[in-house]
């Protein structure tokens, strides 16, 4: 016994080799490609935590991000759930917003033009209550060349109809993926729910139905009770758990999924630092999204971009693609 736990981390040898390698100073590549779409780096925003970029553009340079993934948009405006919608829990938070959104009309006339001003990819998150709802939005977005990909939200735990229902049964997921694929001009990303027994079963279903990529994990259904008032902390009773608390579950599901399918994976779940992001890449994600931590530190996305470059530099990684799925 010298000192346990922490002496077991860190790796001088690898680092020294790396530094030597780094001295050669080859230009570093952080570009990744998903379904034929190239991104300047693998750092994206998790849907619902970044609006359409407007609010956070006061804090971060959107041009530095690989992509902005927008808040979910439906065919018509959704007013969302009653309040309280937010509750704090250990190492994370619960939310039950209920996909409040202005609908596709306002989105197309306001949010897309805003995002078009920046040199970053636009990925639009699409939600709906029926397959028809989804298809309607997907078709409208087909007219926008500036929208690079569509993320299909079939995993929001906070809306009663639709959404999650599609995300927890393989056959339902297969069906909606197939339908949307018929009408989508852009490549589609199916966003998977972690509230399932076997994430790989869902991933395979989406892949078989033609999904171009997967994103995971969405939030995990949780609950908080106020023991002093003896009431639920959220008006919706349950909410989606996000934040650092869920990271180990997310990394596990990304790894399992990467072993099960060939299509690219966008990993997310509690990413707060570049180290966290790299953990997802090593597990098999080819891109990552920053979610709840934007609320804690509005500069997180840019800091993660810089931190990934610093890691590559430190260990002499010339191409970020060499990190993707490197731990097997």
């Amino acid at each position, binding site marked *: 016994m010298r000192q346990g736990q922490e002496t077991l981390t860190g790796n001088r040898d690898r680092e020294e080799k790396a530094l030597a390698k780094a001295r050669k100073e080859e230009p570093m590549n952080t570009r990744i490609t998903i379904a034929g779409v190239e991104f300047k780096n693998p750092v994206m925003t998790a849907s*619902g*935590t*970044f*609006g359409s970029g407007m*609010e*956070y553009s*006061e*804090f971060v340079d959107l041009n530095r991000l690989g992509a902005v993934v927008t*808040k979910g948009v439906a065919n018509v*405006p*959704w*007013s*969302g759930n009653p*309040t*309280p*919608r*937010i*509750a*704090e829990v*250990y*190492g*994370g*938070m619960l*939310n039950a*917003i209920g996909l*409040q*959104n*202005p*609908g596709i009309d*306002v989105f197309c006339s306001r949010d897309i033009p805003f995002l078009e001003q920046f040199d970053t990819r636009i990925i639009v998150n699409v939600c709906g209550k029926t397959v028809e709802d989804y298809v309607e939005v997907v078709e409208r977005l087909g007219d926008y060349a500036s929208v690079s990909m569509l993320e299909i939200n079939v995993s929001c735990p906070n809306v009663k109809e639709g959404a999650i229902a599609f995300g927890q049964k393989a056959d339902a997921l297969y069906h909606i993926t197939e339908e949307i694929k018929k009408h989508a001009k852009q490549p589609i990303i199916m966003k998977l729910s972690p509230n399932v027994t076997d994430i790989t079963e869902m991933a395979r279903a989406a892949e078989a139905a033609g999904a171009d990529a997967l994103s995971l994990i969405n939030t995990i259904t949780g609950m908080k009770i106020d023991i002093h008032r003896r009431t639920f902390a959220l008006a919706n009773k349950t909410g989606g758990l996000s*934040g*650092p608390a869920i990271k180990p579950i997310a990394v596990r599901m990304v790894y399992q999924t990467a072993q099960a399918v060939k299509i690219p994976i966008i990993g997310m779940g509690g990413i707060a630092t570049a180290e966290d992001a790299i953990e997802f890449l090593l597990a098999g994600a080819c891109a990552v999204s920053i979610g*709840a931590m*934007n*609320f*804690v*530190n*509005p*500069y997180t996305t840019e800091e993660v971009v810089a931190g990934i470059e610093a890691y590559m530099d430190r260990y002499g990684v010339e191409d970020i693609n060499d990190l993707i799925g490197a731990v097997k």
Partner: protein
Amino acid sequence: MKQKVTAAVISQQEIAPGIFDMWIKTDLAAWAKPGQFLCVYPRDKSTLLPRPISICETDGEGKALRIVYRVAGKGTAEFSGYQAGDGIYILGNLGNGFPVEEAAGKKVFLIGGGIGVPPILQLAKALRENGSKQEEVQIIAGYRDRNLFLAQDFERYGSLYIATEDGSRGTRGNVMDAIAENGLTADVIFACGPMPMLRAVRRYAGEKAIPAYISLEEHMACGVGACLGCVVKTRDVDAHSHVNHARICTDGPVFEAQEVEI
């Protein structure tokens, strides 16, 4: 521009049981408007979300601002232990603030209840700077008991009326009782306090058919309008989501009382 910064605590003291008065050195003070608030972030890594705390006042030079808050949980308990020189993580300035211009030349009620009293201070100062006369500024402050924190600070800016729940000072009861007992009248109301008080203010303003600007609160995550966590039901369609849910953190926290359903 909104910023998250690590500012330095200038001083802190407990001015009533569980009520702390902290001055913070930050340039955010230069553009802080009455009724705006800060998000304050605990160091405790088990509790990640910010604590929204309204700005009580700013110094003359725009170099420091003051917050007065009640210890009501892990976060505020942590803040209450900060000493002069300690760093404090703040995001500001947030929210719309009170429409000071609406008070010009009018008789005003400035109503504060409990920990809703502090933001009324900067508002009172601003009204006087904006030309309101001492007698036009009627400050009604409601407290639980004899611990009348900030009461002296108000006397310079207007006529002060006190209500206490236990009757130990001023009118026994709430701020509306104090208004009745003193036979006060006003052309416009500005108010901050607990929801039951704000509902009473809203009702009163409705009956008198005068405008009332009330400051609301709700659990928040981002504080900047992105997460849509802290909404309030609105009479009209809101600007952001085109539904009837305005964001308290950015469309508010101050709303005209009749425009929100509380």
